[in-house]
């Protein structure tokens, strides 16, 4: 409770939380489209490619104003995506190759510029390196305002062009036959994605920003089968991971924000992959065990049925040891008998032996009785 009060009333923490929530919403929502279009790595390319833009903007203007640096990041990030599609269109280099080339070249140039600018005598460059791993604690309310406005612009674009973005993500060729200029729709979506990414760089850092694009979407996909719910959930997960990471980092001096956010986002992904209904691995495993148990029970039912046909009486019980001898896996027999008893297909006689019930016999007959010709057990 006191922690919550701190977030609400402590100026720094409130800024940090608000800013992280806003940038998490935007990158989460746009990330859903990137993941569905199998372009998760594009987020990584954009954030790394933004670094030279940030440093150049500082070198050219001498200003460390957030808006100036974000503009530089936007320009370089956008140039990076254009470089990727140019390489794709003009050469035979496959997509992953193009992404790798652009990411490393742009990031390399960025590091070069950053090192150079840090070696200069004027001390004004101090703080640019926070763009590497992010420093949410440094957010002031003006930064939060910028993040909120630009984040809202990118979210609004998703709302307005919802139908076009859906078409682009599901079946772009069909979209082209409907008359939509899909190339332009793609440029629009990419531009908005770049915007959502660059507003987060100061707080999260270029190195790990991609995790806020990919992880919330990957987690959200586990919980829903609708595009609308997925984008909404992805945005909420992004905000949650952003706030959790940023607040943790702001309250622990020296802990950079990027890694803290990655940990939070990874936790969300792990929980979702394990426990989401339908797709969750835990439920899948439970279903498999149940299926397995049912099959095992069916096998023991068949054995009991065969024994019944030999003896011809439902009152004649058989010791579990006999059934265990019939099965390859004797340990499976007792649980199977328990399941059959629960279903009312078998019963335990007073002397501890097992026999079919009337219902169990009827069910076994319908399941296993062979049509005359191959002859039964008789």
């Amino acid at each position: 409770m006191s922690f919550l009060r701190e977030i609400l009333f402590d100026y720094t923490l409130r800024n940090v939380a608000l800013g992280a929530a806003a940038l998490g919403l935007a990158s989460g929502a746009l990330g859903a489209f990137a993941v569905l279009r199998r372009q998760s790595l594009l987020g990584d390319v954009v954030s790394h490619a933004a670094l030279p833009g940030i440093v150049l903007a500082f070198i050219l203007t001498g200003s460390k104003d957030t808006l100036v640096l974000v503009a530089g990041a936007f320009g370089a990030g956008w140039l990076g995506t254009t470089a990727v599609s140019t390489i794709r269109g003009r050469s035979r280099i496959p997509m992953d190759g193009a992404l790798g080339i652009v990411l490393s070249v742009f990031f390399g140039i960025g590091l070069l510029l950053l090192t150079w600018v840090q070696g200069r005598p004027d001390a004004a460059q101090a703080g640019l390196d926070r763009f590497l791993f992010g420093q949410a604690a440094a957010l002031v309310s003006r930064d939060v305002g910028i993040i909120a406005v630009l984040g809202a612009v990118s979210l609004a674009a998703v709302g307005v062009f919802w139908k076009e973005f859906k078409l682009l993500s599901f079946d772009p060729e069909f979209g082209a036959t409907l008359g939509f200029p899909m190339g332009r729709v793609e440029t629009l979506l990419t531009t908005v994605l770049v915007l959502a990414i660059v507003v987060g760089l100061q707080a999260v850092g270029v190195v790990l920003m991609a995790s806020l694009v990919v992880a919330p979407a990957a987690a959200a996909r586990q919980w829903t089968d609708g595009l609308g719910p997925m984008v909404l959930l992805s945005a909420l997960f992004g905000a949650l991971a952003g706030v959790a990471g940023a607040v943790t980092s702001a309250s622990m001096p020296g802990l950079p924000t990027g890694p803290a956010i990655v940990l939070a986002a990874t936790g969300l992904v792990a929980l979702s992959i394990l426990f989401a209904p339908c797709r969750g691995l835990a439920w899948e495993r439970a279903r498999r065990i149940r299926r397995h148990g049912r099959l095992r029970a069916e096998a023991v039912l068949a054995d009991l049925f065969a024994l019944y046909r030999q003896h011809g009486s439902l009152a004649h019980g058989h010791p579990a040891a006999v059934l265990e001898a019939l099965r390859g896996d004797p340990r499976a027999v007792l649980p199977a008998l328990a399941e059959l008893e629960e279903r009312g297909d078998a019963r335990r006689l007073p002397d501890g032996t097992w026999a079919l019930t009337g219902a169990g016999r009827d069910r076994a007959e319908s399941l296993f009785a062979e049509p005359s010709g191959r002859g039964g057990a008789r």
Partner: protein
Amino acid sequence: MSLPPAVQVDDLTVAYREQPVLWDVDLEVPAGVLMAIVGPNGAGKSTLIKSILGLVEPAAGRVRIHGAPYAERRREVAYVPQRGSVDWDFPTSVLDVVMMGRYGELGWVRRPGAAERELAREALRKVDMEAFARRQIRQLSGGQQQRVFLARALVQSASVYLMDEPFQGVDATTERAIVRVLQELRSQGSTVVAVHHALQTVPEYFDQVTLLNVRRIASGPVGEVFTPANLRLTYGGLVPFGGPSVAPGGA
């Protein structure tokens, strides 16, 4: 003066990296017929469909729909792509996919509403898929996916339907549903051009056929051009099962 053909292709040549995929192809599809396009793998069948739709940039050639360039007649042309061309794990429902067929009419930004939903349901009814409207598309069988794509084309209320392998790997129920829809379309005066693989069903399902292997080998009414000689020319002597012996007249 007679009506212009529903689809007219002149001198179409398409090349991928200097390798010609289609070479100087002429094609004339009269309005109101069902035409099959057959040919071996790599014959350029899908490329022909995509070139007509402007999805593939031809090296040369001209496409006309009802006598006008495709760009002017886009609204009259519906496309049923190969069902393997999309990710069926995409988070969306059957009804939603079918409504995409209305997006062209809606234009930019406007969202589909009750009218679009009703049209989509009606189209699903025509392909016996209405009960699946709310299903997530991942839960569909291959044949059901194909019927969803067909329904999506039906809501476009076009007059020319271009289909890429609509019968590929579908179950008997789906095959019957598609054939019924094709006949319905023809009775409304619509034109269908479909890439087709099963030679034995060509005479039964289609009025006209184009035999294609990079070049156009033959094109016209099934009874005239679907001959053992033409099939041998198309498939280079290796006619797949069910081909020439049953060819003219059909089973």
